[in-house]
Structures are given as structure tokens and as C-alpha cells.
């Protein structure tokens, strides 16, 4: 660029539309960690910002806001998703589970316990996303070998590099679940019951 020339950078092509009329907010219903809530949300509010800013559920983290790091992973209707890539209004009527809803009456979920035992985190910032993602992974039931788990957890970046310990924690929780399922099976109880207790 020639020195001295003036360069104008338009950050937003609607810049001159000073009186933009913003769309109005909408009422939606979400069941969050078992509690049904009626919420007035703006159409552009992501599920992540709704949780962190409006509902003070800051356990769900923002690492990139672009679907590239997994820190914002939550379970929506039992499936793991990146909540930064999801507008809240898209999930009207859904059940959302965040890290805050995982422990039951103060008792940690076996996966949370396994994360502590295996030191599966350092700074802890990716951890809620890792845990929610791993719960989703266990439900999907596709990943069983170490390589499959690694692959299936690769949407969750841990810059502290706790990966081998995250793997070990997930494997421990999976083994625990197989045990519970086996015992439950022997008692002829629906094995789903255990899973349900995770996400009411």
C-alpha cells in the first residue's frame, strides 16, 4: 500500500443504517439441569451466552465462540453439542444439561470422580466441556477402544495437554458403567435407569 494513502476499512456493510430495527425477543422454554424455565431471549443470543451471561451458569466455557475448541460443550436432549454454535431460540422445548447439573445431591458423577483421580485437567478451563463431551460419547456408544475414544474426543481441545489422563478417566467411567449395568442386568432392572440418573 502506498504510504500516505487513506484506507477506509468497512467493518460492517450496514454501517450507515443507523436506525436498524432490531428483531424483537422471543419467549422460549428450556429445561436446564432438570429445572423448567421460561426465558425471553433475543434471536441472536447463543445458547452459550444465554447460559453464561443471562443465567449465570458459567461452568460452560467459551474458548473460541466458533465451534473450534469444544469448551462450550453441553448436552441438549442427551446429545453433545457446541453451545456457541447454537442459537438459544433453536432449542425451544429442549432439555439442556450443563456441568452444573451433573453431580446429584452433592455426589459427583463417576466421570467427575474419575477426572479428579486421573488428574485429567490442569487449569480446568476445558474440563466442563471435556466431561459433557465424554458423557455424550458414552451415550452414543460408538467409541470403545482407546483410539476410538481419542478420535471421538478430538473436538475438545485441552491446551494443558491432559489428553492421556482424560482418556484414562473416560475408560474408568466406562468400566464403572459396565459394572453398574451388569449388576443392574443381574437384578433385571432396566439398564437405562443408570443413564437416566445422569440427565433427568
Amino acid at each position: 500500500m502506498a504510504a500516505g494513502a487513506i484506507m477506509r476499512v468497512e467493518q460492517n456493510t450496514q454501517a450507515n443504517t443507523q436506525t436498524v430495527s432490531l428483531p424483537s425477543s422471543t419467549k422460549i422454554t428450556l429445561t436446564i439441569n432438570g429445572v423448567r424455565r421460561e426465558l425471553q431471549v433475543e434471536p441472536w443470543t447463543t445458547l452459550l451466552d444465554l447460559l453464561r451471561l443471562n443465567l449465570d451458569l458459567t461452568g460452560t466455557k467459551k474458548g473460541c465462540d466458533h465451534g473450534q475448541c469444544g469448551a462450550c460443550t453441553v448436552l441438549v436432549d442427551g446429545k453433545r453439542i457446541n453451545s456457541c454454535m447454537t442459537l438459544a431460540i433453536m432449542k425451544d422445548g429442549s432439555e439442556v444439561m450443563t456441568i452444573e447439573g451433573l453431580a446429584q445431591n452433592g455426589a459427583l458423577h463417576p466421570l467427575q470422580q474419575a477426572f479428579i483421580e486421573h488428574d485429567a485437567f490442569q487449569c480446568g478451563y476445558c474440563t466442563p466441556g471435556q466431561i459433557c463431551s465424554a458423557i455424550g460419547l458414552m451415550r452414543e456408544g460408538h467409541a470403545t477402544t482407546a483410539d476410538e475414544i481419542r478420535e471421538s474426543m478430538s473436538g475438545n481441545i485441552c491446551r494443558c495437554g491432559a489428553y492421556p489422563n482424560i482418556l484414562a478417566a473416560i475408560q474408568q467411567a466406562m468400566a464403572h458403567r459396565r459394572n453398574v449395568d451388569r449388576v443392574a442386568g443381574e437384578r433385571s432392572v432396566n439398564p437405562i435407569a443408570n443413564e437416566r440418573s445422569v440427565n433427568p
Partner: protein
Amino acid sequence: MTTNYIGQPISRVDGRAKVTGQAKYAGEYNVPNLAYGVVVSSAIAKGRIAEIDASAALGLKGVLQVFTHKNAPPTAKSDQSYWDEVAVPGSPFRPFKDDKLLFSGQPIALVVAESFELARYAASLVQVEYEPEAHATDLNQQRDKAYKPKPREGVAPPPPPRGNPDKAFANSAVQIDAEYSVPAEHHNPMEPFATTVIWEADGRLTVYDKTQGTPNSHQYVCNVFGLSPDDVHLLSPYVGGGFGSGLRPKYQLFLAVMAARGLKRSVRVTLTRQQMFTIGHRPRTLQRVALGAAKDGKLEALIHEALAETSQFEEYSEPVVQWSGELYKCENVKLDHALANLDINTPVDMRAPGATWGLYALESAMDELAYKLNMDPLELRLKNYAEKDFSNNKPFSSKELKECFRQGAERFGWSKRTPEPRSMRDGGKLVGWGLATGIWETTQLPAGAKAVLTAEGKLTVGSATADIGTGTYTIMTQIAAESLGLPIEDVTFTLGDSTLPRAPVEGGSFTAASVGSAVKQVCDKIREKLVTVAKAMPKSPLANAKSEEIAFADGRMMLTSGPSRYVSIKEVMRHGGLSSIAETADSTPDFEKQSKYSIHPHSAIFAEVKVDEDLGTIDVLRVVSAIAGGRILNPKTARSQIMGGIVWGIGMALEEESVIDQKFGRFMNHNLAEYHVPVNADVQNIDVIFVEEHDSIVNPLGIKGLGEIGIVGTGAAIGNAIFHATGVRVRDLPITLDKVFAGAAAARPVKLAPAA
């Protein structure tokens, strides 16, 4: 005894908070009436702002203010006021100082609004006219402008040459002379930088800041804004990763405080991931290593020169080449480190600054030399093993590197390696084994701590240090609990608070040694008080005992010779009529004792890679890292720290690179999709060995620090393994498949399919 915690694999005391989402980070304090600031970043690298038009943004209801250099409230004038603990020579960057643009991504406006989304939208409406000037952002183009930097505090410049290196090199029977290029890298902690400033009713500020040192950020705010220390309370109880990026105050701290004061209300500023690429980085560095050896492998000459980038306003230098004078026995050594100024932000220390780059080059060159000598790379290292530090002729305070080689090689199975490149295979894939050595420094700095023991036997210890994932909370709790023989549940350690006794920033692997010594010292003071009271108790079993004959364990005090007779700490408190005992302590290293020695942790790293020649994929199958790092306080968190360093080594070797688009002078892959860091699938078997190492010189606890030694050398070990697998030497990090292909194509042009 159950209260012996030092050396035990205790799970993190902050673990529960972290797995339940209760740990709150700087940008997560949702206080009433909070306003949100969003930063507008410069689109050009050099020039000036001709005009900023914020009228569209200000026209939106709910936008409170748009701060720019034109309307920013005045702050301190002199450079000194902006210096922080980790400042480098030069003139620190001051946001909104004037219309001058020094680097792409420089903050030029802060839009503050009632909601985050509104602020973000309004920021997109700010119109900027630039008057650009030609920029220089390519280090390679500035080689002729290299100069010797001013010395930086805490970083010794390369020592003068010893012997006659050029002549010795020229006369050596076997020579290696190669240039190694490493790119800029960004720390990218998972938590973006954020500051929440709470405007208290009396106008004081409570500041939650992402920082590796609350005292450092606190002092910066007071100096820059002319506030008295009591007017600002700065906290940082949880930090979502730092790796050096949080050593110096980041611009969001300045902006959030400025806006809160300007608007007299609470403000939060959080950087975007893109903006995380504008706050400093590990500098791109070009290195030359020349090694001359006799036919038997004896090193006769070692020349290591580095050229690194810095900004136009500060001289950031790091110890790249020093290690080459310390690691090997060699009579003729020349080390040099130069800088060139570019239109970029000042680089920032990043995990093992300098050593990460320097050891990559040195240990790659040593590998090249081993092949030229037809000698096992491990044998070559042992042949030139330094029994003292030849750069200053001091003995090592301890050095179990030989043992690292022995145990690492055994665990890895090094003896089964066949030496020729391309000689090991697994099915259709090439397998390679490589090794490298690591070295870092051990420093202890002055630090303070305070402690309160209650009548109920509960102990709280605090120091204004940080836990950036390093395990500070946990190891300090262990040290305190063991010192006073209390159950660990009864001990709480607090940190990240500017009102606590001062501690250095958390960096340089010096926290465990520095703060650990202060914690030990303050607990010893409480011990002495308890001993005095206990001895005076009627029929005290300790009545005639000397201090050192008394042990503290299981909540009791007893004679080391006869633990069956004891008094409980609670009884002692009751007898003394004490509701609590409070103490403070300042620990100062024994500089005189330490100065007689060369003090370092060492490592030996062994790596195995598998290379698919058809697809070009490189997998790191396993890494064995044997560490000589002094006393290990907690093998569980220690292993994690080393493992993290190794993962960084994998990233450095194969993935990480911040690419500048020279036309714009801007890092263009400024996101986590294009700046690749290792993910779970990239990391397979990692084996960490802690070699026993006793060191009575470093500090009374014998700690050397582990935050950085894990990464040093790992990149070279992987690069060396890739050479062993493929016969291709890539001297330009990261070693991506295209570079391996290109090398392989040059070596065997027929077998490769043409690129589509």
C-alpha cells in the same frame, strides 16, 4: 504417619471446583449493572489512524461509550509507570496513547454497551480511516538489520566465546553446519484474556483479572491510573492456562479499568480468540548451529547463533543459545543472539522461552553429527557429557542426566534400534526412533506467605502467587499440612489475591521453590510458637525436648524418639488460651550459596514416530521422558506438568505455526481451526520417569521446578525420529507432511505419486 504428604500423589485440592463448574475465571463474575466492552482492533500493521467515526455505534440505544485515543481519560505519562515485573528494555505498549499504529490487531477502540451482543454489534459499526505506511514483518528480510539487544533483567546474555571456535571448527574432522528455522507460535490458553472490574460503592475497584501474577497486575493498575494500593483489590483465583501469556498485564486490563473509571460502573472486557493472536507470541527465530568433532565423536567446536524478531518499541530477548555452552563439554564455543525489529507486537515468554528453540536446533544438529560420525546418538551425548558447567566453570548443584539416559533408554528399549534411517518398519509404514536432551534453569525468588492456625486446628495459608493449572493450590497445601502435621482436609491454601503477601509472577518454573520455601517458613514459625506453649504444659512429654526433637504428625506433637507420648495441637491451643496463631514470613533464597553452583533440571527424551509414506501422515506413537528435576512434591500433578510439556513438544514439532500474511503484516491463521494444537488423537503413549535427584543447594526443600523442562528437547527428539524413519531432515518447524514429502521426493523421485 498419615500426614506425610510431600511426595504423595495427592489429587488436586481444587479438583472438585473444576469438575463441577464452580471454579470461576476472570470473565465470569456476573455482577449487577455490568457493562460489556468489546475491542476494535487495527486492520493494518503500521501507520496512523486518520479518523475514527463511532457515530453509528453511539447511535444505538444501550451503547454507553466508544473509547479511542481521542477521548481516553488521561493516564500516567512516563514509560516507567507502565513497566511491570516482566517488562523488557524499551517503551511498553500503551493502549490509546495516540494515533500511531505499531502492529496489526492493536486495540484502537473500546465499545462499551449494556449487553455483550450489543457491544459486539456496535464494534462492527465503528468506521476507521487509516493512513498506512510500509511495514516490515518478515524476519528473513531483516537479517541485515540484526543488532545485539540490551540485556534483559533476569536473562543473562550469551557468555563471551571460549577457546578459538572458528579455527577449531575449520580444523575438525567431522562438521555439521546447518540453519534451523522456527516459526512464531501463540500460547493460546483455553481461557481468553478477560478482566471484570467491579465499581464499588465507594469508588474503589475490585478487579478479577486473568494474570499469572496478581501483585504484578495490581501494581500496574495503581501506577498507570495513579491509584493508591488500597483503592484496588485485584484477584485471580483461577486462571484458565497461561504458559507465559499472562506474565505481563494484557491490554484488556488497561481497557476495562479505564472504562470502569470513565463510566463509574462495572465493566468487563474479554478478548476474542482472534484477539488472542495480538497479545504477544513466541518469536520466530533463525538459528545456525555449527558443530566440529573428532572422528571419535569428541566435540571440538560449537557455534550457535540466533536471530529473533522483536517489536519496534521493545527489545524482547530470551535465552536461546546459552544452553549450548552448558550442556556439553567443549573447549571452543561461540554463542550469539541478535534481534531485528519488526512491525509486530512484542514477543512474550512462552513455556521454556529460548530453550525450546535453542535445544531444538542444538539437539537436531547433534543428531545430524551422530549420523555423520556413524555413532549412536546416545553414545555421542555420553561422550561429550559435561560433569561441570563449562560456561562458567561451576559445579552442578546436582545433575542426574546420565541416569535419565540410562532409565529412559531402558524403558524405551533404545538398544533394539537399528541405526540406519528407513530401517525400521511396521507393516507398510516407516518407524523412527529419536532422542534428545533437555535442560532448563532453576531459580528461586523472594516470596512471602502468611498463615493462621485456629483453636480448632484449622490452618489457612496464603500467598499472592498463582495456579495456572500447575498445581500450586495442591502442593502448597501439602507442604503446609506436612509441616504442621495436620490432616490435609484441615488446611486451606489461598492465592491470586493482591492483599496476600507478595509473591513473584508464576513463571520460570520457580513457583514451587519460591513460594514453597515461604510456606514452609511461615509454618515453621507457627511450629515454634506451638512448641513453646507445649513445653510449658503440665506434665508435658515435650518439656525437655529441643525443637528438632519434636515431630508434628496426625494433629499431634510428639518426641521423634517416642511418638507414643504426645499432645494434640488442639490441646496446646487450649492450654495457651490461643484462639489463633497468625504469622507471616518472607523467604529469601540463599543467593550466596547458590551462586557457587550451576543449577539446572535435565531431561532425556525418547520418541517413536510412524510415517505413512503414501499419505504423509506422521504419528507420534510414544514418548518416554526421563526427568531429573530435584524433589518431586506430588508425582500426580508433576507427571501432568511434564506430560503437558511433551504435548507442547508434539505441537511444536508437527503442528504449531502462526503464519504472517506479509502483505497485511498480520497473523492470518488466528483461530483454533487454522492454528493447530495437538488434540486427543494426536497424543498416544506418554511415559514420564522421575529420576531420583537430591539437591541440597537449590533450596531447603530440594525443588527444581517442572513447568518447563517437559517441552525442552521434545521437538528435537520427534524431528530426529522422523529423520530416522524417513531419511528426510526437515530443519524448518513444524515438520508437516508437505515438507517430508518434498524431502522424500528429492531422495526418491520415482516412488511418490504426483500431487493432484
